[in-house]
């Protein structure tokens, strides 16, 4: 998601939003860097955050499908952001009580930043969803296209149960019910309708992604692959 937002840098519809998306992207890249460093430590194979970000291929990435979706127009980017921000907020809020001290530290730090992100995307959903005919149509269209990736946010994988029993990670069903009530209330307020009978795409926790991630990684990983171990 951080990388996707960085694609807006210099292309935002107005200067303030260009800066906002760049700022949010920066927060997310910073948080990812802390989480990848922790993952590398736990794995114990001396892989650094950069190794994990730049030297893995599509199937080794376990990011949720929503965040790899293309930016589209500004409205679509905000819809993707909002659906993710609400999930991110509740997940990190729960992780702020994790029994794992390192995870707890990253989550408490991130939560302060995510609070801004959510407030920002939330305002845009309301403003554009309940705005002009054109902005409403674009937001409804974005929701129709992105809704199919929303269930993937809450899919568990092997090992989750054990971590949950130990109090390290929260139960994702609880996160889902918090997400559901918050998102549904706001969409209603923004005069947007959740599409019905949507095929829900899932698979990220198994490394199954949409076609977009490969292209994203090609760009994101170009420099370290072309110039291994380059430093600046």
């Amino acid at each position, binding site marked *: 998601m951080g990388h996707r937002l960085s694609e807006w840098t210099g292309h935002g519809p107005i200067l303030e939003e260009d800066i906002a998306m760049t700022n949010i992207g*920066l927060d997310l890249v*910073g948080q990812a860097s802390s989480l990848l460093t922790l993952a590398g430590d736990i794995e114990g194979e001396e892989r650094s955050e950069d190794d994990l970000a730049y030297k893995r291929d599509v199937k080794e990435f376990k990011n949720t499908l929503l965040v790899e979706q293309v930016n589209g127009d500004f409205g679509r980017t905000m819809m993707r952001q909002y659906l993710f921000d609400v999930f991110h907020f509740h997940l990190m809020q729960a992780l702020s009580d994790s029994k794992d001290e390192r995870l707890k530290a990253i989550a408490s730090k991130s939560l302060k930043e995510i609070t801004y992100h959510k407030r*920002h995307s939330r305002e845009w959903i309301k403003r554009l969803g309940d705005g002009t005919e054109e902005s409403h149509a674009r937001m409804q269209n974005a929701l129709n296209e992105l809704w199919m990736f929303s269930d993937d946010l809450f899919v568990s994988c092997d090992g989750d149960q054990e971590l949950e029993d130990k109090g390290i990670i929260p139960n994702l069903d609880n996160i889902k019910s918090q997400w559901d009530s918050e998102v549904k209330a706001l969409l209603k307020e923004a005069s947007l309708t959740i599409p019905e009978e949507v095929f829900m795409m899932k698979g990220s926790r198994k490394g199954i992604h949409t076609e977009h991630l490969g292209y994203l990684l090609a760009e994101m990983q170009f420099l370290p692959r072309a110039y291994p171990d380059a430093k600046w």
Partner: protein
Amino acid sequence: MIERSPGLTEGEIWNHLSEVCDPEVPVLTVIDLGIVRNIQVVNGKVKVVITPTYSGCPAMNIIEQDINAKLIEKGIDNFTIETVLTPAWTTEWMSKEGKAKLKEYGIAPPNIGAVGSGRPKECPNCRSKDTKLKSEFGSTACKALYVCESCKEPFDYFKCH
């Protein structure tokens, strides 16, 4: 080898580091900002503990290098710099001098006690209280963009965090 006085104290290190400025807001030192959390001197070995303002703050690496350079400049070579995330940085750690310097520099200081990121007490240019939020995200992660309705000047507000 540089001769080190045997009685190196924590106070001296704090003094040395009050000469290290933030690369993005150069009127503030790393002490003003509350980035330096702890300094310990044990058997002549110095440990400096720092914390980032925001997770993605691009200045963190430079700050670490600057602290590194400053200690070496002061003839101290036996030290480590450790980064911690907890407790998470807050603007409440910003010093009084820091806030005064920010204002002088044209950035409205964090208005502590306000709800959320708060809003500036006044325009740092003309002191008018009539200010308007332009964007919650400013030129760096720690700032928001405001405009003064009275003098019409845009200005940065250092957010409560």
